[in-house]
């Protein structure tokens, strides 16, 4: 954080100028640090991109307002957000290890088993159909020889 030029002005206009300068510098430093972290955030996907957009939107709003207190609040919030990001990174880095360990043989076996299960279902449907037709045969035999008629 750089200090405003050392001109001893006690007027309120001068104080406002100095506060605006400091807030703009703080925002610029923050953006630089974000750019530096951007490389590490590429892997995190959509959620983090959305959070970045939200933060940028917040930054724009703050630029419009330009008060020191809000800049300080932002800095505090960003610190917490980065901690969350680190945790997410740790979680995401663990997942690809399990995926990468599974070779292509697994996919082939799974596809084969899925195909076999589908075939089994098809043949099971056929057998069910034939069983139902088979159960109807005695009834049809009875009907063939019956003379019972009710309208």
């Amino acid at each position: 954080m750089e200090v405003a030029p050392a001109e001893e002005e006690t007027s309120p206009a001068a104080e406002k100028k100095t506060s605006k300068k400091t807030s703009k510098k703080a925002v610029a430093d923050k953006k630089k640090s974000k750019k530096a972290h951007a490389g590490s955030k590429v892997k995190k996907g959509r959620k983090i991109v959305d959070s970045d957009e939200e933060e940028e939107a917040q930054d724009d709003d703050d630029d419009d307002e330009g008060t020191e207190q809000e800049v300080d609040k932002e800095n505090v919030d960003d610190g917490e957000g980065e901690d969350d990001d680190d945790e997410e990174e740790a979680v995401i880095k663990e997942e690809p290890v399990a995926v990468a360990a599974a070779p292509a043989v697994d996919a082939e076996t799974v596809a084969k088993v899925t195909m076999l299960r589908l075939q089994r279902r098809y043949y099971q449907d056929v057998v069910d159909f034939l069983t139902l037709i088979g159960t109807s045969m005695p009834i049809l035999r009875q009907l063939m020889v019956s003379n019972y008629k009710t309208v």
Partner: protein
Amino acid sequence: MLMKKKNDNLFKAAEETALKSLFDVLEERALDNNAYVRTRLIQTLITIVEANALPVNMRSQFLKICLQRLNDKSSAVRRRAVQLLASFVKTHPFRMDGGQLPLSVFSKKIADIDQAIHVCDHLFDQFLILKIFFH
């Protein structure tokens, strides 16, 4: 593009729900007190089955209804039920093996597939154990 796809999916889901509710109504009418209603129901089912418009997953359900109606007290319903049964046999969708339906062949095929699935599952389990062991 995504919105269009989403709308298509929603439309399809709504269509399926409507179709299912219509078939549910048909199923209810099978137990109607009036014999004429039952007769007309079975006639409608014959039309649907011969047009191959009955979903495959509902065929067994309506075949069971047809078998129940074979014992109906009304002769007209029984006659229509026999016709419906013939339609079911004529338009069966199991034509992968040439349309012939020998029960023993299909039972044997199911047994073979069960054995193959068992072997694959066993191999897969072994592979997982080895992977966990060497990881």
